[in-house]
């Protein structure tokens, strides 16, 4: 009852998302391009000692940024029915609201995670990124981040009135969060004020969590980042389910 039609929608969503050009672009092409360019630009800033090279740095900070950028893709995915003019069918079909929302978030999260695995393996092979036996932990955090990004994107796409305006502005706050999270250059040297401000970005906790786990063998920040990201993801999913009205597809 609650999940009426979920399996069918999930199956349909999975088939579409796995070949979604935007997800492949943000998942593999864009991060690889960024790692090569930024890694080369900053190559003199890292000695490469203990496996800490500029490529190592950018491989670990670019993957979360690009995963987060997938929120933009999800805004479009959320309004797919409306774009394909099949909203009326959804209105009269016996499909629950939960099924619709979940069937958008889960297949996208799975697809993004698959591409994240491909990206991380490519980074390991191409840039010799050493995960120090914590490959699965990194993938788990990226998967939870993918879930949060999908939930935020779905929430904006389904539940906001000014969807048309927001979809154009959304890349800018994500990029600002990227800057604050150190996705373009390490910002630790910018002082205490900047350090405090940077904590508004989820990418800051995620990047810090991954670095402390891999380089200082401490999983405290990693666990905090994981839980906060998961909580935000659940919050936006519940918000999307509560606020979504099928009329949004019209």
């Amino acid at each position: 009852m609650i999940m009426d039609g979920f399996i069918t929608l999930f199956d349909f969503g999975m088939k579409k998302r796995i070949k979604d050009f935007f997800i492949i672009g943000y998942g593999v092409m864009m991060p690889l391009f960024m790692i090569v360019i930024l890694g080369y630009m900053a190559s003199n800033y890292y000695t490469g000692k203990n496996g800490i090279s500029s490529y190592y740095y950018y491989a670990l900070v670019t993957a979360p940024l690009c995963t987060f950028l997938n929120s933009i893709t999800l805004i479009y995915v959320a309004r797919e029915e409306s774009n394909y003019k099949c909203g009326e069918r959804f209105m009269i079909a016996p499909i629950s609201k939960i099924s619709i929302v979940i069937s958008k978030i889960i297949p996208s999260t799975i697809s993004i995670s698959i591409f994240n695995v491909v990206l991380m393996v490519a980074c390991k092979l191409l840039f010799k990124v050493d995960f120090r036996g914590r490959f699965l932990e990194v993938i788990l955090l990226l998967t939870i981040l993918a879930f949060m990004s999908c939930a935020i994107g779905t929430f904006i796409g389904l539940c906001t009135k000014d969807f048309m305006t927001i979809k154009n502005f959304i890349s800018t706050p994500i990029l600002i969060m990227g800057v604050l999270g150190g996705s373009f250059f390490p910002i630790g040297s910018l002082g205490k004020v900047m350090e405090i401000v940077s904590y508004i970005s989820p990418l800051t906790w995620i990047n810090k969590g991954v670095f402390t786990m891999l380089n200082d063998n401490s999983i405290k920040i990693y666990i905090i980042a994981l839980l906060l990201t998961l909580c935000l993801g659940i919050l936006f999913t519940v918000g999307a389910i509560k606020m979504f009205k099928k009329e949004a597809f019209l």
Partner: protein
Amino acid sequence: MMSIYLIVKNEVKRSMKDKKKLVITLFVPIIAVVFALLLNNIMKPSINLGIIDKDNSQIGTSLKTMASNIDGVKIGEAKEDTINTDLIIAKYVAVIEFDRNNQIKLYCLDNELKGTIQEITDNFIISNEVTGLQEILIKMKKESMNVTERSIGFILLTLIITCVFTACNIIKDKEEGTLKRYVLTPNASISYILGNFIFNFITTLFQIIISTLIIRILNLNLEINIFEFLLIGIIIAFIAASIATLIVSLVNTELKASLIASAFGMIMSLLGGSFLPLEKMPDGIKVISNISITKWIIVFTRSLENKSYTVQNYIPVIVIVLMSVALIITSLVLGKRKFV
């Protein structure tokens, strides 16, 4: 000319209708410009050294006291369990660990810097004097940008992104079929694109003037005078509006336009050295950086800071203006495709 004037007038009227959007598009860039300057005023170049002194060794305490007295050197209590992360995220350039037997362990990701700091600590043990940190600071200041230069880089980045939001009107007009109707009138498509460009330029200019006034009121510390800042602002407004016009002529959705603007602005900033000093980048990047508009604007800002007003120093401005004109002409040619 008349049709260009009418397009500009129409755009002004149109922007006045949606008050919420007007506030966002007009004042968000102003806030961003002032915020960029305020933030850059807070961020002073400094050497951040982390110290781990578990046993409160005499040598550690005395190095801490003496080094922290040097202007531009910041000493922080580093944590043992995050040493590598703090170095990777550049919280500290180096971490010095002291133990009870006055043994020193140095952590640093930069080989050259590691050698210099090692030398400084070795000298300190012998002479009990901190020498050499000032030299690193001078080198750092030489390599990195000052507050004004960095702020100018950020302003260019911000205005490229915000100008595209304003320029997106042409994409909306295409979607709503307004351009189809316009093409049936005796007016040329060139007038429409030029009218949009002029409106965008005027809006950005207004934002620059307001920002300049705020900077004047807040009395923010700049290495150039307020009129020079205004001059640079006008140049930025011109190039940002022309880049925005070209981007919206090339793409057909607002999302693509905003993504391209963000990516383009970021690449220009990175190549212009706004984030990481160019000095330490590979030679190939230094050569490529010459195509960065950010770099030229910063070169011009530097010449104004040095009070050198020779014709040679105005070459970057001439190049930027010529480039803007070339971008507008390209937009006029490419933008015609939208009028079908």
